[in-house]
């Protein structure tokens, strides 16, 4: 009973039978609620909250695909390899699990380490991976060349994947000569050079020849073209467009400072250590631009813009330990929902034309009728890239 003394509120109440029963009842109700929630969180389909970037679209019912999903759920999991990008490692498995209730084990890391693992595993008769998200050099040069992959095209059964109208290229874009194994999902444009517009206004850099001005000697940076990575295709862009003599006069004659650290190059551009940087990429500039630094990508009249793919090719391994889950994954990552998650996490534009790209700068989006230098072209990557790299090593000695 309330005696009016406020201290009563803090005195322990005697435990009565009524209180005991009420508490037990509430506890049982809470436990039952938790049990129901726990059951629901293990269930497939679309009531769960989707990770950022997910389209939230509900796919049209497809009996063949539903049967495939059921078989994949029996397998219980999928194991994929992918880029070391933290966002991709977090978002792709979460979205896949939310969509299908299938666990995804994600093995990230440098491509060369992955190649060493796979080679060793396969030599020992072990097959641990179902699928891979990778860059062109690894996918074409290692996985495909070693015949570790299986054709993906027969596995793609969702109409929103197989219908060409959803693709910028008018069809699903396979890169390999058989046109069925290595699916390219990402394709974003970029200008060949980034500048600090305070030191070099963009309108003063119309052609690459301007970079040979002696006043820029020692003030240019570039992603290292002597090792596999982003610096090699951008150096190749200049080499193929302008010739060897120009290339030597630029990279060597202008004492271009090389680095394998994109952030270090971007920082140098912002701090006015560099006037311009070759092969940097818009994704490294945008955070600094948002903070007010006068940086920009510049198109050159005599060196074509590039079309890149980042970590944007997908393939299925043969002898996959979870074949149904692998096929489900292939359909999903190529669908609007999966491609949305993938492209947002990689901060890149996908090849699908039904995804919301409002977050992406216009420069990322490939334009019709522009003749890009495709750094992900099959012939370039497989036949020209390594000889060019070796050539660059010799030229820079």
């Amino acid at each position, binding site marked *: 009973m309330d005696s009016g003394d406020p201290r009563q509120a803090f005195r322990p109440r005697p435990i009565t039978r009524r209180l005991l029963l009420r508490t037990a009842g509430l506890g049982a109700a809470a436990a039952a609620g938790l049990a129901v929630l726990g059951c629901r969180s293990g269930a497939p389909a679309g009531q769960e909250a989707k990770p950022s970037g997910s389209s939230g679209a509900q796919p049209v019912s497809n009996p063949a695909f539903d049967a495939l999903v059921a078989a994949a759920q029996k397998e219980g999991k999928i194991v994929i390899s992918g880029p070391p990008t933290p966002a991709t490692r977090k978002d792709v498995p979460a979205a896949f699990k939310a969509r299908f209730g299938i666990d995804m084990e994600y093995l990230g890391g*440098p491509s060369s380490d992955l190649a060493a693992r796979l080679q060793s595993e396969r030599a020992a008769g072990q097959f641990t991976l179902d699928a891979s998200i990778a860059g062109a050099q690894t996918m074409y040069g290692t996985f495909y060349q070693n015949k570790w992959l299986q054709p993906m095209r027969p596995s793609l059964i969702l109409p929103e994947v197989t219908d060409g109208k959803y693709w910028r290229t008018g069809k699903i874009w396979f890169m390999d000569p058989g046109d069925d194994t290595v699916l390219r999902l990402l394709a974003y444009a970029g200008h060949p050079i980034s500048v600090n517009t305070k030191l070099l206004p963009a309108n003063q850099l119309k052609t690459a020849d301007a970079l040979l001005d002696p006043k820029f000697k020692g003030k240019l940076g570039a992603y290292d073209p002597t090792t596999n990575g982003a610096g090699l295709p951008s150096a190749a862009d200049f080499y193929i467009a302008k010739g060897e003599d120009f290339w030597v006069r630029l990279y060597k004659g202008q004492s271009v400072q090389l*680095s394998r650290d994109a952030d270090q190059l971007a920082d140098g551009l912002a701090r006015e250590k560099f006037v311009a940087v070759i092969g940097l990429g818009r994704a490294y500039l945008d955070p600094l631009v948002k903070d007010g630094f006068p940086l920009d990508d510049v198109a050159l009249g005599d060196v074509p813009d590039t079309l890149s793919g980042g970590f944007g090719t997908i393939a299925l391994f043969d002898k996959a330990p979870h074949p149904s889950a692998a096929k489900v994954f292939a359909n999903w990552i190529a669908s609007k929902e999966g491609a949305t998650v993938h492209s947002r996490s990689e901060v890149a534009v996908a090849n699908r034309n039904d995804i919301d790209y409002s977050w992406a700068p216009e420069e990322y989006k490939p334009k019709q009728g522009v003749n890009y230098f495709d750094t992900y072209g099959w012939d370039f990557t497989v036949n020209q890239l390594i000889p060019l790299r070796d050539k660059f090593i010799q030229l820079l000695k």
Partner: protein
Amino acid sequence: MGARALSLPIRRRVRAGLRPLPSGLALLPLVAGGVVVLPLIWLIVDSFNVAAPGHAAVYGLQNWTVAFRDHSTWVVLWNSISLGVVRTIIALPIALVLTWLIARTDMPGRGAIEMLCWLSIFAPVLPMTYGWILLMDPDFGLINSQLQRLPFIHGSVFSIYGFWGITWVHLTTTTIAYPVVLMIPAFRRVGAALEEAARTCGAGMFATVRYITIPLLAPAILLVTLLSFVIGLQVFEIELVLGQPVGLWVYSTRIYDLARDIPPHYGQATALGFVFLALLLVLAALYQWYLHGRSFVTVTGRGYLSAPVHLRAWRWLATGICTLFFAVTLAAPLALLVVGSFMRRYGFFQLRNPFTINHWLDLFNEPVFFSSVLNSLILATATAVIVVLLYSAVAYSIVRTRARGSRLADTLMWLPWAVPGILMSLGLLWLFLSTPLRAALYGTLPGIIAAFVIRQSPLSTQFFKTALMQVGPELEESARVHGASWLAMYRRVLLPLLAPTAVTVGLLAFLSSLRDISTPVLLYNPQSRPLAILMLEYTFANERERGAAIGVLLAVFVLVVTLVARSLGLRLAREAS
């Protein structure tokens, strides 16, 4: 040197009455040596495989000839050796003085200085390097920009890039601190009696150090010098960041590039890596030759009293110089590491609202963060315990039993450091996959623990050996004459005497396992991912700020674990003395 040992006939009679050693103890070094060398055998064999990846093996010399035919290989090897020699020459005297001040004198604050040495070793290298770039870049470095305000300074004074920048960063991170922490246990075990005898005969402090202390500690000093030199040759992150802008390349970068090429050229990388093996074997042979026939016993049956040298008026000057040393070499980059983890963009103080806690929140919200931390703790703890127990027994067998094959085993225990970590990891990968235990070893925590334990064999075995050489055999023989089993003697007599070394070795194994990337990089799977792999992923994704946050966590962890381990070691040592 040291107390006079029992004469040979007496020792034989004593030994005749002793209980036998545990069976297998004499064989332990050979067995352990065989296990640690297995991955290297795989690597050597594969270095002669010239077939394309995925094809049947074809053996030839092409990998070796291609690797060494390139003139630039010899240029980068020269760069590496000259960098290593220069920094060893600079670091060794400083390390000796620091060690002596910490372990043998009454310098105030010596415990704190020792802690700072541990912090220097295990602070993450790349963020510390970026910190130095922020301070000493010729174009925007903070130190340069402040100095240029002075009227008589024109242009930048310091440049962190190039030979001397690389040397400076090495000196301020590991090259001085590493030998210090390794030599401290040995320095502490030197009894005061010999030094007092020297002073009684009229020798001053410096003469005593020069003619008594240093020669007594020659095995430890030599060993530490060799190990530091070899480890330094295999490091490449600092050289990549500070050498590439000025075209200075080193040998380990060449190996790294070959191992990370597409497709990887492991045969050529292994061929190049075996230069380290040749160097290591030569250095190990010189080390063995120096030690042969000499005694370095400092702890005998009469016990030892480790009394500190009184510096008197020099005490506070010594403390001041040590504090200044660490203020210059560690405080600034460490402060930048901590601050950097809270910055929106590392090093950009001029941004509007430059600070944020988002990187820390993102780190703690990382789905794999806590599992990675737990995996790392399990890996590091198990590695430390196994390393201490296993390699103390191996060292004992090598030093005391002089069993047949012990010299061979002693050499074999050096070999895990003969090749860089990424190649060792590849050898272990092949080893695990080719055994029936692959399900238990590949991709699992026990497999990674086994890899870490193998990787620790050179340092751990040699340090226990050095410690055992300082302990006279009469203490053990006395225990065993009184009926103690070998195990009881080991536990109650030897281990307490070795406690400081055991704690140091265990601590190094623990902290190295926390930070090691190259050993587990090919051996983990998503369930066994350690924290260091998360750091690697952030490095590749250019997430420096989150990498700095992990670096801060590791630094805090180093401090806490070192404090605990140190107090444990000191307590055990007090009980022993």
